[in-house]
């Protein structure tokens, strides 16, 4: 055995490998041999005991009684149910998969015992007792337990893309409002009956049910009345999370919905004073896309308003 002096410690240390060159040749016997032969053909079989149980993988003797099994083989699975599992986050050399996976006891359909194998579930959170799995077969099979690369969860969900295309016109009231925004102005209206000021501009009062004729120009400052922190991406928002808020423009009686930016989401609060942030004049677009001209509302730095 070759030895070498360890340079760091000066100790005498030798690397040593115990290996049978080429591996042992083992006969399988008729029972295990049948199982492995069927595996090569991408089938899984169990063997029936005298008591009627189906052992998978097959053994030559019933572990309960020691009796010889019957010699009756029956196809099981290929699907099965996970009974318990252990999650391997860092696979070792020699493990069936080189990415995180689960060891599992899998009760194949039609079997009375559980098979030990790997489950390629991607994430530990995908594992649960009762999980239904199926084998993923190796393309080149030789009659070996690893002819099954691993088991994979059954299909229980799909992703459905949903998309429809439209051409929208804003209607007269909204068209008027968007023209105002294109000019850098928020247009609202005052009800001649109740005196309430609405923004965006509208043609009738929702409370009184009467037409509105008086147009009002509102400033681009206001107060956050309520807000939500959104964690799902939205094409109109710059980043996740973003804040959408009800902003009551100064002089209006109802709030309108808009993004709040220029401030960390967790600092946004009810009563916060904000002002619209307009894109530079040379980047502005005309109606009906003029809302793009408002990036978002940003804090003014004034003291909070009483709501």
């Amino acid at each position, binding site marked *: 055995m070759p030895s070498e002096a360890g340079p760091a410690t000066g100790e005498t240390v030798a690397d*040593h490998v115990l290996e049978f060159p080429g591996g042992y040749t083992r006969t399988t016997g008729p029972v295990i041999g049948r199982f492995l032969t069927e595996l090569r053909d991408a089938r899984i079989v169990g063997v029936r005991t005298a008591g009627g149980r189906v052992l998978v*993988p097959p053994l030559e003797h019933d572990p309960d009684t020691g009796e010889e099994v019957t010699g009756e083989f029956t196809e099981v699975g290929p699907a099965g149910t996970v009974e*318990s599992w252990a*999650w391997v986050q*860092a696979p*070792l050399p020699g493990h069936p998969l080189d990415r995180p996976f689960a*060891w*599992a006891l899998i009760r194949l359909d039609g079997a009375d015992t559980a098979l*030990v194998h790997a489950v390629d579930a991607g994430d530990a959170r995908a594992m649960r007792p009762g999980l239904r799995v199926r084998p993923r077969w190796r393309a080149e099979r030789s009659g070996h*337990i690893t002819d099954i690369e691993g088991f994979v969860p059954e299909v229980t969900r799909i992703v459905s893309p949903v998309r429809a295309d439209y051409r929208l016109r804003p209607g007269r009231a909204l068209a008027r409002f968007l023209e105002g925004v294109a000019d850098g102005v928020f247009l609202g209206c005052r009800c001649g009956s109740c005196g309430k000021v609405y923004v965006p501009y509208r043609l009738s009062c929702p409370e009184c049910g009467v037409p509105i004729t008086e147009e009002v120009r509102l400033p681009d400052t206001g107060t956050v009345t309520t807000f939500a922190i959104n964690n799902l991406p939205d094409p109109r928002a710059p980043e996740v999370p973003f804040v959408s808020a009800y902003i009551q423009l100064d002089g209006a009686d109802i709030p309108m919905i808009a993004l709040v930016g220029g401030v960390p989401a967790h600092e946004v609060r009810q009563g916060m004073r904000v002002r619209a942030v307009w894109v530079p004049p040379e980047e502005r677009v005309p109606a009906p896309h003029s809302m793009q001209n408002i990036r978002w509302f940003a804090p003014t730095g004034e003291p909070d308003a009483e709501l």
Partner: protein
Amino acid sequence: MREVAVVAFAQTRHSAVDEGLSEPELLLPVIEEVRRRSGLRTFGFTCSGSCDYLAGAPFSFVSALDALGAWPPISESHVEMDAAWALYEAWVRLQHGDVDSALVYGFGKPSQAVDPYRLMTLQLDPYYLAPLGLDQISYAALAASARGADRAELDEVVRRSRAAGRANPYALDLPDPEGEEAVVAPLRPYDIAPPADGAAAVVLAAGDLARRVCERPAWITGIAHRIDPHYLGMRDLARPASAAEAARAAGVGKGGVDVAELHVQFSHEEPVLREALALPPATEVNPSGGPLAANPVMATGLIRIGEAARRITDGTAGRTVGHAAGGPCLQHNLVAVMEG
């Protein structure tokens, strides 16, 4: 049944690292110590337990005889198992009645294996389990998962075992458990008995010889071992039937149990074994720290019997249980009951 007792026990100060001693060099002091304690220089029978795969060489156990002085030829045997099973063989041998004493020893140097847990893959069946590369931590994690062990319960097992180990001069000094990262979930690093290099020896003596060489012999009033099917999917990993059956056959339940030393290689195995052996709630489990405080592989099980016997011989307990396990997921279980 012939009366047989543990009359002497010794173990090394187990080490988590290779301290540069060969196996016979590890053994020599413990053999000397049990010879001194028992006053016996020669024995009617000698039996050892070890694993050639730990040494990486076939028949490596033969060289361990160098620690005994086996000339003129002695009556000797070996099991490729934990030395608790060597003790069982010696106990059976003493039942023959023609010899009155036996020396039993076990030893292991897991530090020599680059990965001792992957070494244990070699004990699995070569058709269905070993080709998967199922290592010792992986299959133990499957059993822990089948048991559904409670994290707080496991942490407490480890905390108590390590604290006891710190008070035991032969065990490792390990801190209280901390850290949440799993090796193979649900097992965390501290749930795993730390492999250590070490050895242990026991002297068994029968009848009058035992009374002559030992003030308080630890009489073996029951000893039995049972085995479960090997394949992990053919048995209930959370409830090892063989452990329960061995305990029944050894008569654990025929009296109170002051102390039980259990071969707990993974923290979940303590509640599993406590249940299987039907130990009374008052039983103190692994006061030595158990394997979770030092696991000198192949001597660990014998040390459980030795520690349980020591509590009889030093007069601090009246009835104790030693347990040893072999194979994957507590497949094979041995239980010895000792009384003063």
